[in-house]
């Protein structure tokens, strides 16, 4: 009977791994392989096109058609995210208007604790053009180590795996400098992208 209880404990541990205080993942660290997130297939056509993900119920970060993916963890209820929103939009515009970066660097948002409606309120309010995925029950947020918001994670796709090269809380300061920093840290300039 003890043996069966041990097996039960093992099954429960695996089932609840990302959701318990003990099992909450640590925030991503620069240099480590990124633990892939499963995200729902985008509802909007423009977002599907932007990410270049193939039709299906879900996709992973590595499936995004980009060398670099910037993930912003945000919340409609977070005042700093509200203040930062225009700057993240500026970052998006700078990337999109740069012939060397457009298509190679992409941004997504994870709206921690926000319902679909709340995430949509945020994107409408700040005219956010990149996809923002609601995470109403904090599932993704827990997998990202319950980071405070806004939090930025720079991820470089390397074939079947992805690697974290940037992971930091808070406002990123000057947008142009931040973009240069991202390019430099991701080392994609070595792949034909100029600083």
């Amino acid at each position: 009977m003890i043996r069966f209880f041990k097996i039960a404990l093992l099954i429960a541990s695996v089932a609840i791994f990302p959701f318990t205080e003990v099992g909450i993942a640590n925030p991503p660290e620069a240099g480590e392989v990124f633990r892939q997130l499963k995200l729902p297939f985008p509802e909007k056509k423009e977002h599907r096109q932007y990410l270049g993900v193939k039709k299906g119920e879900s996709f992973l970060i590595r499936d995004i058609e980009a060398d670099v993916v910037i993930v912003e963890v945000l919340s409609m209820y977070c005042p700093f995210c509200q203040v930062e929103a225009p700057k993240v939009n500026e970052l998006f515009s700078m990337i999109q208007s740069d012939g060397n970066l457009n298509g190679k660097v992409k941004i997504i948002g994870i709206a921690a604790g926000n319902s679909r409606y709340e995430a949509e309120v945020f994107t409408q309010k700040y005219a956010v053009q990149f996809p923002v995925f609601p995470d109403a029950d904090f599932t993704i947020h827990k997998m990202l180590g319950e980071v405070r918001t806004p939090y930025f994670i720079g991820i470089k796709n390397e074939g079947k795996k992805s690697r974290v090269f940037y992971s930091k809380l808070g406002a990123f300061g000057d947008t142009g400098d931040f973009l240069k920093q991202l390019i430099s840290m991701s080392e994609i300039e070595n792949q034909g992208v100029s600083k």
Partner: protein
Amino acid sequence: MKKWSICFSVAAAMTVASCFVVSSVYGLSAAYESNIYNPKDLKPTDSILKVAKGDPAPDFSLPSVAGGLITLSSLRGKNVVISFVPAAWTPVCSDQWPGYNIVKEIFDERNALLLGITVDNIPTLYAWTKQMGDLWFPVLSDFWPHGKAADSFGVLRSDGMAERAIFVIDSHGIIQYIDVHDINSRPSLESIVNALDAIVQ
């Protein structure tokens, strides 16, 4: 076979149970880093409602952080949303009103005013709400007599905090929606919007 059945039952029970002991992940904005006291999970509700949908809302006059008194009955002609939150500088509360702060137009379009109320005193509320930016809606102190307004609605908890509760009151002063929410989680914005839409229609 029976043993395996017991094994999986135990596993399932442990998994379900674990869902109720997760840490609170609200109050996650960097705006409050190091300033938030985490009381951990509390009893979801701890009071008995004294009002019901269809009742006239109990009147109150409470001091506002911006100065002056606000009297509920003086707001007739407007729909009023009252957001009671338990306490300043606590996790969920700190990530609730900043969201309302970016949707003034949602309230305006529905002829609605929002009143935020806690049982904290004015200086505490001043310091706390300053972290949220300039709030467009009045923040009222139900500090003294302690929790009198919350108690008149039946949302004063036994520890002196208010429940996390939403009351939607129509332009005639009648309560049209009540959500005494689990204190450990935030009511969704759409629940408030839907309640207002039900009145407007």
